[in-house]
């Protein structure tokens, strides 16, 4: 097959957001991921977002059943799925309607819609199709009806199993992607399942390409820079799993929970190749206690979970803090409280990570801000946990879990790995908690070390791990455990403000919102506002320099994907307003009137939403406390 020249020159774009939605099981996710992978290979910056229905098998043709993928492709590296879709491929009008009603389509965006429903034997389907297409035309969307099913039937018997590759062909033609790379992608996707599937799917891909070539006059070009360095393309959960392996940890104990589990899927397959194991425990509590046991007797272990599982692990996290056992706990956050929104994104667990577990249980809390950071943060978390003999909680969330972003291929470094557990004899007279007065740190005794026998206990204990009956002993031990956080904090580099270093507004965020905040802040700066941006990697302890940075701006606002009471609410006032998680922390620590903005809509914050929230704040008078 030869490639024909486009019928008209392509429109050059800096970036475009492309959604592909279908009923569950029609393969829109594979289509979107393949589209993104091809673009990434050509050198585009990409960020993908999975569109996941809440049920495994939602009813066909339902508004709530949209399943698929958003790909944002750009000329440059990006960290967010952007705002609304510029182009949507939909396999039926109901899933499209779901996206439309959720505000996911940009005004005037292009819609490539399967047209077979216009001739459906069921008059209700025909009517519903007509209603939606009428609405789209009336509201100014660029609707293109595509006879996907009809075209696919020329090649396969079951178009439900083929439309996705036809759609991939369409998109590759529209965006001018390399057809050879697309064929190779199809071979890679289907060759893993069944070699016999490769040929028909390549045919479908080519059919989609040809159809677009003949019938669509849409041509876009998002110029790509061919990559010169090797890059990794994985989602956030796979990056976490790779980080677990690269950190030298040897045991991951987990219990299935959405959205954390997919990290354990890859890890279950791969961990044994580096000598480790994934232990699927009988419950969340067993998982964390198993990890604690493995850590206590060897190298630092990890447990991976999401919100409800994190709540269940709290008592054991306190035990690891009390016993000074290194432990990495990864919480891939989801919508809460309770069962909440299992598949949806939210950043609601920061305060529970910082303050959770009863009593004074100081632990280190950090958050990954993009896919690359998921990988490196696990390695960092393991090193901190083993250096400071404590719990490090690493927060990710559902939006990072399934998002893909290419990042520079890490180059292995020996210091990533854990040292083998010390088995040398313990010097005479040494105690298991000989806390250093300067750092709060003590040498860790590991079973097997002659002379190190002691009983580690969750009871208050003295430096010999003997049960504390003297009140001063308890206070002394708590002081030392608390001190470790201060000692660790002293090792952190001061934060650096991005954007403007002083001015009208400082925006502070953490975790997965980084890319969206970056873009929103840049838009405001282009309009002449002096806006700075801080994205915190460590949430407990907080790195130095935050207070000084806040003092250089008229206003400070935390942008988070969690709930904060809105001042517009007539019941809400300064005495009862509840803030977003980070805003609470910063207000408490720095005595600054930090404002708070967030949403809890179960999806990543978009640059546009943040931008308008920040504009509203810039329009308000400067609060006196901050100006002072």
């Amino acid at each position: 097959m030869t490639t024909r020249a486009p019928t008209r020159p392509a429109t050059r774009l800096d970036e475009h957001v492309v959604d592909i939605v279908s009923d569950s099981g029609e393969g829109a996710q594979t289509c979107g991921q393949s589209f993104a992978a091809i673009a990434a290979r050509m050198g585009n910056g990409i960020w993908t977002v999975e569109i996941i229905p809440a049920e495994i098998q939602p009813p066909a043709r339902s508004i709530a059943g949209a399943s698929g993928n958003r790909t944002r492709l750009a000329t440059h590296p990006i960290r967010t799925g952007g705002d609304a879709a510029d182009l949507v491929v939909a396999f039926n009008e109901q899933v499209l309607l779901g996206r439309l009603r959720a505000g996911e389509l940009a005004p005037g965006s292009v819609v490539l819609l399967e047209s077979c429903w216009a001739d459906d034997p069921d008059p209700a389907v025909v009517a519903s199709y007509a209603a939606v297409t009428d609405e789209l035309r009336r509201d100014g969307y660029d609707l293109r009806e595509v006879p996907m099913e009809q075209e696919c039937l020329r090649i396969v018997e079951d178009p439900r199993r083929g439309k996705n590759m036809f759609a991939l062909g369409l998109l590759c033609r529209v965006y001018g992607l390399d057809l050879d790379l697309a064929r190779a992608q199809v071979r890679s996707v289907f060759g893993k399942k069944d070699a016999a599937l490769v040929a028909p799917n390549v045919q479908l891909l080519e059919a989609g390409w040809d159809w677009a070539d003949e019938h669509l006059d849409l041509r876009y070009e998002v110029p790509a820079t061919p990559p010169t360095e090797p890059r990794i393309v994985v989602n956030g959960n796979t990056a976490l799993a790779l980080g677990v392996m690269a950190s030298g940890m040897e045991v991951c104990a987990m219990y299935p929970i959405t959205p954390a589990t997919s990290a354990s899927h890859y890890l279950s397959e791969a961990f044994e190749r580096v000598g480790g194991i994934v232990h699927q425990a009988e419950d969340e509590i067993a998982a964390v206690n198993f990890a604690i046991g493995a850590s206590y007797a060897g190298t630092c272990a990890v447990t991976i979970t999401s919100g409800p599982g994190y709540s269940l692990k709290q008592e054991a996290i306190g035990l690891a803090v009390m016993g000074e056992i290194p432990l990495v706990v990864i919480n891939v956050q989801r919508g809460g409280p309770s069962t909440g929104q299992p598949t949806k994104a939210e950043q609601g667990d920061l305060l529970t990570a910082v303050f959770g577990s009863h009593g004074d249980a100081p632990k280190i809390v950090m958050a990954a801000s993009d896919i690359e950071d998921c990988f490196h943060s696990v390695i960092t978390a393991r090193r901190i946990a083993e250096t400071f003999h404590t719990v490090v909680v690493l927060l990710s969330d559902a939006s990072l879990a399934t998002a893909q972003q290419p990042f520079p291929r890490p180059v292995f470094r020996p210091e990533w790995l854990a040292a083998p557990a010390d088995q040398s004899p313990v010097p005479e007279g040494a105690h298991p908690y000989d806390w250093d007065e300067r750092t709060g740190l003590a040498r860790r005794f590991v079973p097997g070390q002659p002379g190190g026998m002691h009983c580690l206990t969750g009871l208050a204990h003295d430096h010999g791990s003997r049960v504390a009956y003297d009140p001063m002993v308890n206070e002394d031990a708590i002081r030392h455990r608390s001190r470790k956080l201060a000692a660790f904090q002293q090792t952190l580099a001061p934060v650096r403000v991005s954007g403007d270093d002083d001015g009208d507004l400082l925006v502070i965020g953490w975790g997965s919102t980084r890319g969206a905040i970056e873009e929103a802040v840049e838009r405001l700066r282009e309009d002449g506002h002096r806006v700075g941006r801080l994205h915190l990697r460590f949430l407990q302890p907080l790195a130095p320099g935050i207070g000084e940075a806040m003092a250089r701006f008229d206003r400070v606002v935390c942008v988070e994907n969690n709930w904060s009471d809105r001042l517009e609410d007539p019941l809400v006032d300064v005495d009862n307003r509840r803030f977003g998680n980070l805003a609470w922390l910063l207000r408490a620590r720095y005595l600054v009137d930090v404002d708070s903005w967030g949403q809890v809509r179960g999806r990543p914050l978009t640059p546009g939403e943040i931008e308008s929230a920040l504009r509203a704040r810039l329009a308000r008078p400067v609060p006196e406390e901050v100006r002072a």
Partner: protein
Amino acid sequence: MTTTLRERLRQPAEDHPLEFYQCAVSRWCTGCGDNAIMSAVQRLCRDEHLPPEKTVFVSGIGCSSRFPHYMNGYGFHGLHGRALPVAEGIKLRRPDLHVFVTTGDGDCTSIGAGHWLHAFRYNPDLTVIMHDNGIYGLTKSQASPTSRIGIRTNTTPRGAYLEPLDPLSVALGATNASFVAQVVDWLPQVLSQVLTAAFHHRGLAFIRVLQRCPEYLDGLFDPWINDPSRIRLLTHADAVDPDPALARAFPNREAHDPSDLGRARRIAADHDLLPVGVLYRNPAIPTYEDLRPVVHLSPDEMEQRIEAELDRFTIWPDDGGVEGGG
């Protein structure tokens, strides 16, 4: 087994005196059965010449769970009900260590019951001693799952309402249960023989020890102490093999083959006679650490293998083929 238990019990020279295995004076009440259990464990350590640095005693919360504080060895006194998962993690990561679990009836069969069932299924090589006094002692007299019906406690002032949970029947019904025994704290010789058999069993050895609580349930076991005919003593050449003088005191002796699961279940279900001895043993069930070995690789090997994993997801410049990146 290549040597019989009798031979092992006649092991010569002690490396250490019993006191070597004790590091603190216990704070259990006078007459508490926990003291007898600890003495038996210390005899085992002495007789097996266990280096204290190679032993780990893991416990949960309760009177019995203070056990690791008093033993010369590594101890892990963790959370209520969670001793088993901790011990599984230790054993998986460190099969070279001798790992013991001391737990109580509340710790094991109530708050930790889920872990208990699954521990059988994992079958790690642990010696699990469940001190069963039929009451919560540390929190001062509340009914436990094994409290007999009618027992008055602070939470059952009109007498316990429910049939007690039968730990032996539960254990013998658990998937992969590989060693189930019952013993009483007032028969030190039998206790030692059961402990020795448990220690030499490769897999999870579960021992329920009926243990007296003179503080809250004084006299609970007197009918069995005073009338040994109410005990079914299970004997076997490679398990409980009491000397003739002791054996004579138990008219209801039964030569029991511990590989006979059906008989073991019937014995456990017959509540007229209290079984003492090894009810069931199956050394053929693989241990979890055998199935799931942790292999510590050299840094060079790690580098190679981690690079290989990264390769699976790498897009190389000028890469025409698409093998990763999906």
